């Protein structure tokens, strides 16, 4: 049983006990339901859909930054609280849940916990305020369309404010691809839970059973997000681990793969390459020397393998894995300059970037040249290949020295 489940089970148990006590003391009020929903908010704060990009690369210029941007499942319960109860006890419940869950949060630092709590309180205020204002204006004659419309406006307000806060906190919005998916799951489940809890014009009032049962698809979505997140991380780490092999074998300088990956991505960004090409370029840069480990070692009597052979072997290895085939192509092209003229421009650029980033790092890290001298050397070494190659070196200079 993971820590998340243990803490959620603890909160659910506390909620049940509080609800039982409330039902015994004030049987006719909604206090028992609020206790259960409060436990739902607290548990939902611990179950989050991670929407920050996770296929991160380490280093100073990672292709996709890893952020702590996340959407808690508690936002779905918040929609129920905002729409189904008088605002005073509902707000009290939401705030109490935030207080209860504070020591159980997973953020290691108190500052981060406070930040997260304040962020969620703001979203709570937006949800309560928007729903009650809009419903007061349009909800005199309660109908499904009016309720749905009000809920949609409320959710949009929450999304808008949350995206602003996430952007401010993490320098990236929560409305990337994963963010949109997460908000869709949370908002549709939350609206169904709300309709189930309160009913419409006295019909179809399912009470607390509505939120409980309609949370099932949301849990399933959460589980899928968690699995996907773990698989993405594992894949990225596997590639990083494999990139270590040539370094451990002493075939390249320590940190070479990391540095070339960072530099390649920065140059690629400066040249305006798209995300897909950047991702392939980063993988290619990390693994471009991997093939060397399968060749005979000159230190033990084997012949010295030329760079083109290493690139060829590496490319063959990567092309054996369908999702890494694009990276394999870049390595192959980078290892064979002559083939540039026959290839598409985008593939050319990525391969040239990798080639120059690799040559630059070898010059600076192994031959101890200054960056300016290394770049000048690259310029002199460039043959009559085409204007793109000069653009790549210009971008390299821009990234490394900061001026052009």
């Amino acid at each position: 049983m993971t820590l998340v489940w243990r803490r959620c089970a603890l909160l659910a148990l506390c909620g049940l006990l509080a609800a039982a006590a409330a039902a015994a003391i004030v049987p006719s009020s909604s206090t028992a339901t609020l206790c259960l929903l409060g436990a739902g908010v607290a548990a939902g704060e611990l179950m989050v859909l991670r929407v920050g990009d996770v296929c991160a690369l380490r280093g100073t210029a990672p292709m996709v930054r890893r952020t702590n941007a996340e959407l808690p499942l508690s936002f779905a319960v918040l929609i129920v609280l905002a729409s189904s109860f008088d605002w005073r006890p509902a707000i009290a419940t939401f705030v109490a849940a935030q207080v209860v869950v504070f020591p159980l949060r997973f953020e290691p630092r108190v500052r981060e916990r406070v930040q997260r709590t304040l962020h969620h309180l703001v979203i709570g205020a937006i949800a309560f305020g928007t729903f009650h204002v809009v419903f007061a204006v349009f909800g005199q004659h309660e109908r499904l369309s009016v309720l749905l419309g009000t809920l949609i406006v409320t959710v949009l307000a929450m999304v808008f404010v949350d995206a602003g806060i996430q952007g401010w906190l993490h320098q990236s919005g929560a409305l990337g691809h994963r963010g949109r998916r997460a908000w869709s799951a949370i908002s549709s489940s939350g609206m169904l839970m709300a309709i189930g809890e309160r009913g419409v014009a006295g019909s179809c009032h399912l009470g607390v059973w509505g939120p409980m049962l309609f949370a099932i698809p949301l849990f399933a979505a959460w589980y899928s997000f968690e699995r996907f997140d773990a698989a993405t991380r594992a894949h990225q780490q596997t590639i990083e681990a494999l990139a270590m092999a040539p370094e451990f074998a002493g075939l390249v300088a320590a940190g070479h793969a990391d540095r070339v990956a960072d530099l390649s991505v920065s140059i690629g960004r400066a040249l305006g390459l798209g995300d897909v090409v950047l991702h392939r370029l980063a993988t290619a840069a990390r693994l471009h020397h991997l093939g060397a480990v399968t060749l005979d070692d000159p230190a033990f009597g084997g012949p010295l393998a030329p760079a083109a052979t290493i690139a060829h072997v590496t490319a063959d290895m990567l092309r054996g894995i369908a999702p890494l085939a694009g990276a394999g192509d870049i390595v192959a092209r980078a290892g064979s300059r002559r083939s540039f003229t026959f290839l598409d421009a985008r593939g050319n650029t990525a391969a040239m970037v990798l080639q120059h980033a690799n040559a630059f790092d070898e010059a600076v890290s192994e031959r101890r040249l200054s960056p300016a001298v290394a770049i000048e050397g690259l310029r002199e070494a460039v043959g009559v290949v085409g204007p793109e190659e000069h653009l790549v070196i210009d971008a390299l200079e821009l990234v490394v020295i900061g001026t052009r």
Partner: protein
Amino acid sequence: MLRSYTLAIVALAGAALTLALVQHPLTRVMPILVLGILASASEHQRVRLPNGVVVSPGFMVGMTAIVVLRSSSPIAGPMLVGLMMGVHIHDLVRGRRAWILFNAATFALGTGAAALVFSAMPERLVEPLPLGIAAVIPAALTVVFVESVVVALSYWFESRTSVLRSLVGAAPAIAQVVPFALVGLFLGRLYRDLGWPVALMLFVPVLLMRGVFTSYLELRATNEATMQVLVRALESKDAYTAGHAERVAIYARYIGEELHLMPWRLDRMRAAALMHDIGKLVVPNQLLNKPGRLTANEFAVVRRHERVSVAMLSHIDFLRPIAPVVSGDHSHFGAARNSGSMEAFAIAVADAYDAMTSTRSYRRALPQAVALEELRNKAGTQFHPGCVEALARAITRHGVRHGAGYENDCESWLVAPPYAGLGSAGLGDLAEGLERA
């Protein structure tokens, strides 16, 4: 035979539907159409898990139909919805008409049987909420049972697979059908009271769940492919270890299954077993393939691979807890009796067994019986006794033979390996040879 069985099932479904329609003629067509389309869409969202279980939200819509149509056409309505559940675009495109007919009839019979059970329950059991939730469970169990029996019989007709074994294999479906049925109950109430737009809302999280989960499964397969390709690269360095990592992973799984390890631990153990020698990537080819004894310096270089393997596996979060498995210190039962993990001990036994039953540059393969005897001799000191016995049991149960005379990969070699040396896991023989030297 199978074709006759399919026709019989289709005829049975047709007869049951006709009977139901005679008893309760259709009065509301719209809900049947809407829910039928939704049911078919749900079946298109099914996902096959790595353990073979198929997760489908189809019966969620079936249960919705049972609730919505309870008062108008309690059996025929849900049966028609079930019928539409069997219409899959993939099958239509491929022209698999018999397949579509069989699936549609099976879903119709399952949903109809569940509707029969649900409609037989009195109103006072179904409407009040805590009881209503309980009332869904018999209906969900009925649909699983009926559909499983129909499919199990088809397997029997097709390949004489035991019906009981097929039914036991279908049991995990209960765990996913019951929650979806509960959601279906509530969705049915919302649909009944508020109309169809509400029903559509539930599809957003279901579609998202399916999309993300499919991406996860693809990524998982990619990671496995990455490991496999690198293992092949490793094996290309050393012809004698061709297939070694995959075999160690299989033997480790045998042991894990015998010891009833959880599926996630089996997955993790497989990854660690596949990559347990990954550090050999840094060992020069010339040393790995050297037919004679290694010098002390050369042996030190070879031995480095364990540390490198640990470092590389430790970089991967989910393998970090068992990364030490690849160092002899942590998989040696005597040295790590209290600190080592079961996965480490299992991989150590699997590795040693494969090393002994495969031909290496320094020794030809040993017979299976000799290898098992050697493992038993060292059980309790070098190897975990439970793992050794688990491997022996699994090999007997699977009826497989390894070792001398049963090798799958017959390699040609420049210098024929000697028929000498009992050997042990990985570098055991080399280490002993070096000590003797």
